[in-house]
């Protein structure tokens, strides 16, 4: 039994099924991406109880009882999460494949509250590889998100 994006889903899986494969292949939540399957690229980043994790490095069965949020669960009633909108406005992606992971990672980073400087942002976003090289624009999104969270 998994809690995903506010809903309960019941699944029967081989015990060695990763959370990533459970999402993509069994639940057809393909917004979460597979880029390496080894925790080296961050494309599979999701939020578990608000913390960002690589969903390829955890088994689905280990996440029972926790709240998993994927890219599909961020927009509410058709309205984009501010970080999603900021990715569009700053053109912080090109091919879009690393984007869901980047977005979840930005939200996770803001929740962590550790990033204070530009270099902090760059370091703490370095687990999410963007081969198109949208980093300059991604950093702008993070800066904005941090400002928004401080204003709150």
């Amino acid at each position, binding site marked *: 039994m998994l809690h995903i994006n506010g809903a309960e889903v019941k699944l029967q899986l081989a015990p060695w099924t990763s959370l990533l494969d459970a999402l993509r292949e069994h639940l057809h*939540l393909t917004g979460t991406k597979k880029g390496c399957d080894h925790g080296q690229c961050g494309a599979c980043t999701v939020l578990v109880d608000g913390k960002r994790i690589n969903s390829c490095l955890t088994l689905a069965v280990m996440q029972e009882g926790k709240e998993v949020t994927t890219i599909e669960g961020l927009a509410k009633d058709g309205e984009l999460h501010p970080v999603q909108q900021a990715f569009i406005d700053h053109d912080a992606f090109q091919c879009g494949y690393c984007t869901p992971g980047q977005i979840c990672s930005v939200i996770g980073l803001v929740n962590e509250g550790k990033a204070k400087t530009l270099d902090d942002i760059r370091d703490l976003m370095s687990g999410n590889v963007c081969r198109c090289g949208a980093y300059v624009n991604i950093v702008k999104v993070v800066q904005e998100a941090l400002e928004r969270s401080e204003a709150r």
Partner: protein
Amino acid sequence: MKTEQIGKPSNRVDGRAKVTGEAKYAAEFNAPNLAYGFVLNSAIARGTIKSIDTSKALALDGVLEVFTHENRPGYVWGDKNYQDEDSPPGSPFRPLYKSEIQFSMQPIALVVAETFELARYAATLVEVVYEPDEFESDFNANMEKAYKPKKYKSTPPQDPRGKPEEALAEAAVKIEQTYAHPSEHHNPMEMHASTVVWEGDGRITVYDKIQGVQNSQKYLTNAFGLDEAHVRVISPFVGGAFGSGLRPQYQLFLAVLAALQLKRSVRVVLTRQQMFSFGHRPKTVQRFAIGASEDGKLQAIQQDVFAETSKFEDYSEDVVIWPGVLYKCDNVKLSHKLVGLDVYTPLDMRAPGGTTGIYAMECAMDEMAYKLGMDPLEFRLKNYAEKDQNKDKLFSSKELKECYRQGAEKFGWSKRNPEPRSMKEGHNLVGWGMAHGAWEAKQQEAEAKATLTPDGKLTVGSATADIGTGTYTAMTQIAADTVGLPLENVTFQLGDSSLPKSPLEGGSWTVSSVGSAVKAVCDKVREKLLDLAQQLENSPVANVGLDEVTFADGKISLNTDPSKTVSILDALKQNGGQAIEEKVTSKPVEGQEKFSPYAHSATFVEVKVDEDLGTVKVTRVVSAIAGGRIINPKTARSQILGGMVWGIGAALEEETVMDNNLGRFINHDLDKYHVPVNADVHDMEVIFVEEKDEHVNPIGAKGLGEIGIVSVAPAIANAVFHATGKRIRELPITLDKLL
């Protein structure tokens, strides 16, 4: 053409799909009763498979089949049937064709099962016995066997121009140096994948990661002897490719083979490790001998290139065209030889030939400028090429001097102390370097269709791709601009083999080629609309030609009196409830061949090198680009920024390392193959200089996918020299080479 949409920094039209996870990539299309294939790769680099035992895998409940060279069906196995639009001369690799192993990690079996987990596990149970042969994987050790191919895939090296030997011998100042560029892998974030949907009546729909759906379609019809009408290839989104999707990759062949045999839908996704088992940027070694007069005029250039290829195809790329494009020099001698190794055939990777050739040449020219005691920028201005000397044609436009001026000013180049090791900040040696680059702005033949329905919605389509380059957005803008409709009324379709014919999405030619087709088909829609508008009673636009009206804001208005208008909706009402439908084939315009079309760039870089640790940080990059007309400054800037990040990767990080004991690229994952991450990227600035080009194509745009990368790596290498006084002539410049 007025510029209502063109030139606007619009957000990507596919942005929402990409930030919500709705955009579907090749491995993400679902089908009922889908089976999963997992590829098994060869453990040796050369030899034969003596035996392959699949019984343990097949004994598992849920394993459907294991395809190998022993049980593969008898398709059309002639090698010509495996060629595709981007094949180099030679005999293409045929998966599962025979027991022979031609390269390490060659696919040797496809295990198909009910679930991915099961297929992956079953693949570990397949037992293979090999008979290994001697192999050749060491580039340097095989350079002496380098050969001139019978046929070049690239522009063949020109016959000597002028009197290079004499000019070189007589030159007052000379340099002779060798530069090496390693093998690199594209590593798009999305791994290559194909989902083949079995439609039940012999027809298949294939979702493929590819830069040209019609290339995959043609490949499949040839290789499997299928009817074109039975194979539809779809690829609406591509998670990066950078050239890796120019040729159909083996997962496509294997997935289709399994689907046809099992008569059910099959998905095959490669692993990140397997992404290192096909095409890559070839390792290249270049020897340069350059002569100049004492006052800094180039007298002679000799470039000798050695480049990696496979034993079965002669891959080559445009490494030797740059002496004719980048500098004025009357005496030039070129050679381009290939080193055949037991590897998979190299494959075009972002700015193929330019990334390697311009890197080496621009480093050599920096060395020459230093030897002459000239500022590198002044040296370049002194040897400015007004003509493409390869073709003896004027450039269609060339605002490189403006790139130099604006880039240097923004960067503060005039404050540079030319002395190496002259700038220091604490532990860090600071270096400033520059380089320039070029990339050809080709236009290919392309087709497009347009449908304008009575409700004023325009749909335009062509079978091109959007690999993150912004094709959807740029084409939507061109169409909206031409017909005078708001962006939201226009939809652009791509990535479907049933759409009108398009060239491969590569070579920076998509805006030029497909954009021209989109403009042409929309021009026909305009013609039809004006015709309809003139059929209105007392039409305010009666008796005028197309050049006397403007299409904007959903209206056709008279140029001489803009208050006289007909709305496009009213014009459409004259069409008896029918949509306007048009289709065109767009060819390069006449007269274009009189010019040589190139985009140009100038890049200025600051690096900080830790004197104790040898670590290099690229703290500032300014690139000024002359790319003709910019369709969308926002997405265009992103493309150039991406190229700059690639330049950092090439200069400092990327190298696929060949283990010559195994004949295998050994750092085959993203942990050991380093690509730039967020922390590697600091201040970056893109300048688009104004450049009007009336010859390049009807749009005046030159394409930006590759011009962003070419001058960055040499500028970094030159900055590292300025910082440290050390000339590293072998990329990547890692700390071990600096200490």
